């Protein structure tokens, strides 16, 4: 498949069919089927250990699945480094613990991948870096090191860093759960904006306010399975499964 066809590809952003994954004997993901439309915003929730992180990490091959197919942006995810890197270019990821590169400045964090992966001239990459740092509202921190920023600022840099690669899909793995409460909203605001611009997003989060506000669909996972999925209104007000109800009562109860 050439790059040209890829940019014209307009099928589903992600298709996962009959996917299974094991850690040794432990069956972490059980027969996952999921189709994500272009521009769709999905929130994934579920108890700890239910396999949420593992699921989204399979999409950019941070974890390898053993059975079934994953097709990202029309490209099947197979054991081929070139294909994997082609997919990773299209998929941005934001981690719970930011994972910024501490030895590089904020701007260098942002321009690194455009320079080395996209072979962009340094000037241009830095201009793009500044553009996205402005979007996440911290251009004035561009020349500091990550260690000098607050958690919320670091997470916004991490989002900007991903956006600099102009991904077509963004994955978020509990982006606010390592933050002090007063910093959560500054990160969520950036994510809401991103969602409103039409980015395809898969978000593991327990921020139900965010889910209600922007999600097109909420997925509930438990024990490695997708137990229930629905649009947010139905999901929160009229859960079908006992396990979903129990989970919702636990996280909304306090």
């Amino acid at each position, binding site marked *: 498949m050439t790059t040209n066809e890829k940019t014209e590809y307009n099928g589903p952003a992600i298709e996962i069919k009959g996917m299974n994954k094991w850690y040794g004997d432990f069956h972490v993901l059980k027969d996952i089927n999921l189709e994500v439309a272009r521009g769709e915003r999905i929130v994934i929730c579920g108890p700890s250990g239910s396999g949420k992180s593992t699921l989204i990490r399979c999409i*950019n091959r*941070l974890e390898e699945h053993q059975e079934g197919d994953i097709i990202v942006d029309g490209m099947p995810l197979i054991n081929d480094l070139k294909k994997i890197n082609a997919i990773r270019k299209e998929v941005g990821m934001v981690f719970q613990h930011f*994972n910024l590169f501490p030895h590089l400045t904020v701007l260098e964090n942002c321009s*690194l991948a455009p320079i080395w*992966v996209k072979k962009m001239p340094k000037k241009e990459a830095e201009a793009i870096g500044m553009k996205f740092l402005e979007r996440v509202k911290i251009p004035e921190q561009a020349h500091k090191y990550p*260690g*000098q920023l607050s958690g919320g600022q670091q997470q916004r840099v991490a989002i900007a860093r991903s956006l600099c690669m102009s991904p077509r899909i963004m994955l978020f793995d509990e982006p606010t759960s390592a933050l002090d409460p007063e910093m959560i909203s500054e990160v969520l605001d950036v994510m809401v904006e991103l969602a409103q611009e039409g980015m395809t997003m898969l978000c593991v989060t327990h921020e139900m306010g965010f889910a209600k506000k922007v999600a097109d669909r909420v997925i509930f996972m438990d024990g490695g399975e997708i137990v229930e999925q629905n649009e947010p209104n139905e999901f929160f007000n009229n859960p079908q499964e006992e396990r979903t109800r129990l989970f919702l009562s636990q996280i909304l109860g306090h």
Partner: protein
Amino acid sequence: MPFTPTPARPAPISQMGVIGWLRKNLFSNIPNTLLSLVALYVVWQVLSSVISWAFINADWVGSSRADCTSDGACWVFVSVRLNQFIYGFYPAEARWRPNLAFALLVGFLIWLAVPRIPYKKLGGILALTAFPVAAYFLLYGGAFGLPVVPTSRWGGLLLTIVLAVIGIVLAMPIGIALALGRRSNMPAVRLVCTIFIEFWRGVPLITILFMASVMLPLFFAEGVSIDRLIRALIGITLFQSAYMAEVVRGGLQALGKGQYEAADALGLSYWQKMNLIILPQALKIMIPGIVNTTISLWKDTSLVVIIGLLEVLGQVRQALADPNWLGFPAEGYIFAALTFWVFCFSMSRFSQYLERRLDTGHKN
């Protein structure tokens, strides 16, 4: 009435400064005071006799042992032999060549280490390309009208520096490659690297040097003789790279897997990830370890005496065996110890400086 705190009074003299410290730490009660006095007496006795031996009663100038008349140290022994300790049997009229090479080495180190000097990249490239070539022709000669000085005439501090610097510089990339290999996903690569590292780490350097001098020639056709210095360097490099590999591996392990994942998620290739993200951070963590192995290699170079090369310590011992100068082992060994100490201590300070300079405020 508003509350206005009275300013704190300064602590009484007896509780601060030197007197306060002494009172608190040495003379807080009677047993402590007694112990302190005894200890001070012992320290004074030792120090005063050392000082009078090494400085006050010492002989500094002269040309033979007849000039050592007092009962203190005979530094004449060292000053007469100083050139031998520094250059070995390197011809006197050519000593400017190692001096110039050493000045260049220091110059490059300063260029690379002092933040204010620009063109670091150029400096690095020159240090790794032009400098070795220049140093080779300066030390060995054979071109540009410089007569050849065979390595058998090199010795003393010159030899120590040559062995240690080349050993460390070569061991660095090999060590990094071995460490990456040991963590590779490919079982064959991992196995080979692990065996290599564990083999060289498990053998004392002295045996490696011995093997290098006895066994290496067996691998080559008869008549092909490899320079003794090269043999020593091969042995030292293999030995040092195994240690370096373990230091690097420690650095790589200290880095959280989040850094690997973030690099992967951005689509960086394996080598980009290693060169841009992992190694720069790991190397920073590794500085104390690298300096540690460097310091021990620096001292271990004295073992090359087993294959007949005489670095500082070797030269000192040879000089001590000179029938005209029998009886000055203390002066000789103190000089050798001081020489080693000056270099090793500078390296240790340099590593602390580097660590501070590279700190970006992030505890990973």
